[in-house]
């Protein structure tokens, strides 16, 4: 692993964290509406796994999608503009926070019907298998999503047809206010994947290095023709499910305990103790992230709203 790579991961982790904090602020100011789901606590997963993808791999995820959008390379300002409902946003202001996408980057977006994108992921993978490419599909979803039919049908299909898809379960311990054990008959989610014949392992989702390593291995297996793979990333969301979550279902002690494993802290300690970076370098990165975000908010503020004509655009392909 090169130094630059570590520093880039650090930058991405900090970018996601600060982007989410900024979004939360903007939501409170009424600049962002609808639903807003923050990724704070889970940053290492998007960063470490997307770092392991090759350029022609597909990425698809749920509504908690800002981080995935950032790490596939969408500029923060285009995401912020989307959340402000501006026409300059990645989805032209029509999708908002939960439906970010950039098909040119093979990022097929955020989906807000829980589990609804898992069958789509099998379709992306099916097409690549059909075309005999070496492209894999990285499909992200939460622990709660493993209880809906979509999950089981998709894993079975992927297993049966040996589709080139990597299922990445971000087990943050809760689906809204429901803890895994209250919703899943099998609490080790990897066991559900094994039922469909998928090689599956649990990964420390707070450690970006471990996430990277595990993803790289899984993608290599897919490309070696070993079929679909499954990773259960053990993680935690530090904030509520979405803005306005009354948080009646977990204790602050529990949250505090998980916060000790802050993914940024873990990488930072590693970088400093291994002398891969010094404090000043990291602070420099923090500062540049801050500047980029200021500019992103400014861009979003100043961007125009969609026009009335945009209302009927994009329903059908014209001819």
């Amino acid at each position, binding site marked *: 692993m090169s130094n630059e790579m570590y520093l880039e991961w650090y930058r991405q982790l900090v970018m996601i964290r600060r982007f989410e904090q900024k979004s939360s602020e903007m939501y409170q100011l009424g600049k962002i*509406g*609808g*639903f807003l789901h923050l990724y704070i606590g889970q940053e290492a997963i998007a960063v470490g796994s997307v770092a392991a993808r090759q350029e022609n791999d597909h990425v698809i995820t749920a509504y908690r999608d800002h981080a995935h959008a950032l790490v596939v390379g969408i500029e923060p300002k285009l995401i912020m503009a989307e959340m402000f*409902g*501006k026409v300059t946003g990645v*989805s032209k*202001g*029509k*999708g*908002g*926070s*939960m*439906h970010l996408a950039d098909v040119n980057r093979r990022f097929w977006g955020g*989906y*807000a*019907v*829980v*589990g*609804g994108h898992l069958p789509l992921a099998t379709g992306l993978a099916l097409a690549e298998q059909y075309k005999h490419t070496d492209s894999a599909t990285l499909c992200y979803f939460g622990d*709660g*999503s493993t*209880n*809906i*039919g979509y999950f089981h049908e998709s894993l079975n299909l992927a297993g049966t047809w040996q589709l080139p898809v990597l299922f990445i379960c971000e087990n943050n311990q809760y*689906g*809204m*206010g*429901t803890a895994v054990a*209250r*919703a*899943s008959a099998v609490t080790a989610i990897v066991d559900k994947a094994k039922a469909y014949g998928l090689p599956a392992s649990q990964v420390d989702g707070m450690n970006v290095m471990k996430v990277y390593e595990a993803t790289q291995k899984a993608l290599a297996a897919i490309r070696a023709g070993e079929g679909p793979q499954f990773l259960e990333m053990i993680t935690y969301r530090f904030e509520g499910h979405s803005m306005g979550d*009354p948080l*009646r*279902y977990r204790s602050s002690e529990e949250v505090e305990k998980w916060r000790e494993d802050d993914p940024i802290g873990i990488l930072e300690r590693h970088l400093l103790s291994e002398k891969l970076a010094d404090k000043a370098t990291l602070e420099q990165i923090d500062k540049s992230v801050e500047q980029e975000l200021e500019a992103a908010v400014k861009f979003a503020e100043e961007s125009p*709203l*969609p026009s*009335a004509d*945009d*209302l*009927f655009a994009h*329903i059908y392909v014209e001819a």
Partner: protein
Amino acid sequence: MREITYLEAVREAMTQEMERDEKVFLIGEDVGQYGGAFGASFGMLEKFGPDRILDTPITELGLTGAATGAALVGMRPIAEIMFMDFLTLASEQLVNQAAKLRFMFGGRATVPMVLRTPAGSGTGAAEHHSQSLENWFAHIPGLKVVMPSTPYDAKGLLISSIRDNNAVVFVEHKLLYKTKGPVPEEPYAIPLGQADVKREGKDLTIVATSVMVSRALEAAKTLAEEGIDVEIVDPRTIRPLDAEPIIQSVIKTGRVLIVHEAVKMGGYGGELAATIAESRAFGYLDAPIVRLAGRDIPIPYNRTLELSAVPQVPDIIAKAREIVQGKV
């Protein structure tokens, strides 16, 4: 009379029916510990315990089927589906099973269940959390479809829905949850299949459902200042439909505007228009029957676009004027 919100009215109806009848229970995602995504069941877990307030996994199809099965053997479940958009997932059990079992078994089975769900746009929740799909279910024989527009109707209609021996789809509206109105404290039942005249008038009949009733009432105020006297009829239950008050109103006014939030094509307005056209009111019409409904698009995120995707008060005013002035 005491005023409470629409959301509180829903909770009160569930609570009072659960107190009255042990066979009634609530099943849904995050209805217990979380208190419901919109808070409809807030505090009910503490009151009734986890045997009667059942938190399920994310499993719309599964929970709808479980409610249907339990209803078959004599329970009276209330199932909550967090957003109407997810009725697309629940609909196999609802449409193919719950709606048909009684008929299929020659009248030897009943499915006394209620499926409650919030519909509609206006909260910035975008394409996957904003739809109005009531007409999908109004199309299905064996289901009843209820759409309360006020706190008073919400309580009385929900109580009737729970007591009804059929599968009832009970469509709430997110924007109505916080609206307040007079609601009696004691339990009362408003019969399903009984329309309500929400405002009397002589120049134009507006038939409106759900949140469009309050928008029509708002529009009627402005129209009254211009000398246009609007009558507003709220079907309240769209299946079965109580057509007679609508027909009588149209006979009286000679003009009718139908307003709903769902997309116009294939929407309930078509059914209402046809019902009027097929009735004795036809000969009394002084103007074409007009529908004002959701635009033919998904609900977008952007606030301005979202607002213009469905009828707003000024749209109703403008359309009403056109009809009365003979411009349609």
